[in-house]
């Protein structure tokens, strides 16, 4: 077992983990952050995407021990409590989700995309989300959601926060 200390959604967690434990399993099973989900075992689907030290990673392809000393942001920590991050607002407004299973990863990938490119074109959005698979929406409204989120975020830090 290895000792790790990881800050998740602003809270510091300490724990003993088997080295083989994947970050996503640690989030779900050890600290109860079940908002992040597993969709595949080949790192293709992106449902498990979280931010690790501010950048998107697939938490099924990171060992929990490798996250020792890092900061993790999940879908559950994107906005405080019942607040809405602009990307969350945009996904609701544009019907960017149906079953919602890809959504945690899709939203986190979109947050990362917009942090690097605040005004993406449609093709930049599509390419930026290539690592996140959705089976319900055909992506049409996801792409619209991300473009709308970009608008909300460029309109100022407070707009769309609720």
């Amino acid at each position, binding site marked *: 077992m*290895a000792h790790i200390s990881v800050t998740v959604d602003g809270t510091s967690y300490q724990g003993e983990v*088997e*080295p*083989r434990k*994947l970050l996503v*399993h640690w989030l779900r099973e050890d600290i109860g952050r079940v908002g992040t989900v597993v969709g595949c*075992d*080949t*790192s*293709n689907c*992106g449902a498990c*995407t979280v931010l*690790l030290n501010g*950048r*998107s*990673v*697939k938490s*099924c*392809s*990171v*060992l929990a*021990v*490798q996250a*020792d000393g890092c900061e993790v942001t999940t879908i559950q920590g994107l906005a405080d409590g019942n607040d809405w991050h602009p990307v969350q607002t945009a996904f609701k407004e544009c019907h960017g989700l149906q079953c919602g299973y890809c959504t945690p990863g899709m939203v986190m*990938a979109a947050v*990362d*995309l917009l942090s690097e490119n605040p005004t993406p074109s449609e093709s930049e959005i599509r*390419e*930026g989300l*290539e*690592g*996140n698979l959705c089976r319900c929406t055909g992506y049409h409204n996801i792409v619209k959601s991300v473009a709308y989120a970009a608008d909300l975020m460029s309109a100022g830090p407070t707009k769309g926060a609720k």
Partner: protein
Amino acid sequence: MIPVEFDYVKVTSIEQALAALKSGGEDSKIISGGQSLLPVLRLRMAEPSVLVDCGGIDEMLGVRDDGDSITIGAATTHHGVMSNPLVQKHALLLAQATATVADPAIRHRGTTGGALAHADPAGDIPAAALALDTSFVIAGPGGRRTVAAKDFFLDYFTTAVGPDEILVSFSIPKCDWGSNYSKFNRTAQAWAIVGVAAVVNVQGGVIKEARIGLTNMAPTAVRASTVEAALVGAASPADITAAAMHAADGTRATSDLHAKADYREHLARVITARAVRAASGI
């Protein structure tokens, strides 16, 4: 799926890494980004007893200017490489190839040196490394040695890096030629059926020299040397197309689910012409 049990050692120096590999024996495996390794572990297609995490060795991180060349730490992430100004200025082809690897989240975590050492014939980085005449610094129990690109890729998933060795960094001679990496795949996320990495020196509208690396046309990435020779003096699209007809010469393309060998060979010719035209502006 869940990997088999293993021990995990995080090291902070090359010396510690080599010592850990030695004590771990033949079932030890190096991990840094782990983007190729972890899916393999999850599917239990590999069952190492020890993972030696080299992701925190300072010497293996970042890009530095060495005058005539740039040197890239092997544990620098794909994202770090493709967005690095030195790489974009002096080894644009590498940035172009790196940008096609998998997807953004994987590029944030996966390392370019890891992709080179993994040597997947369908991986995008080796062909670019070949075309850029990259040299590799390998550390082992007997010290360090430098290996040229042509001697680095040996076979399927096999490089000059021995089981008790580690790839520290790789160096690329500065190259301001026109460049292009063209990846042909079925979906954005899929592996390349064929990839073509091209750097082309054009003077006065005529190709003086070209270096072409091919992805997934043999057990390792390979140079398309017949095409390179035929391109010298090319000055028109027709010249390039004619030269590119040799793209499959000497390759050993395989057949798989997504492409049979003859189609791969055909694609190599078509995509080589396109990559060279894009790189040369002709």
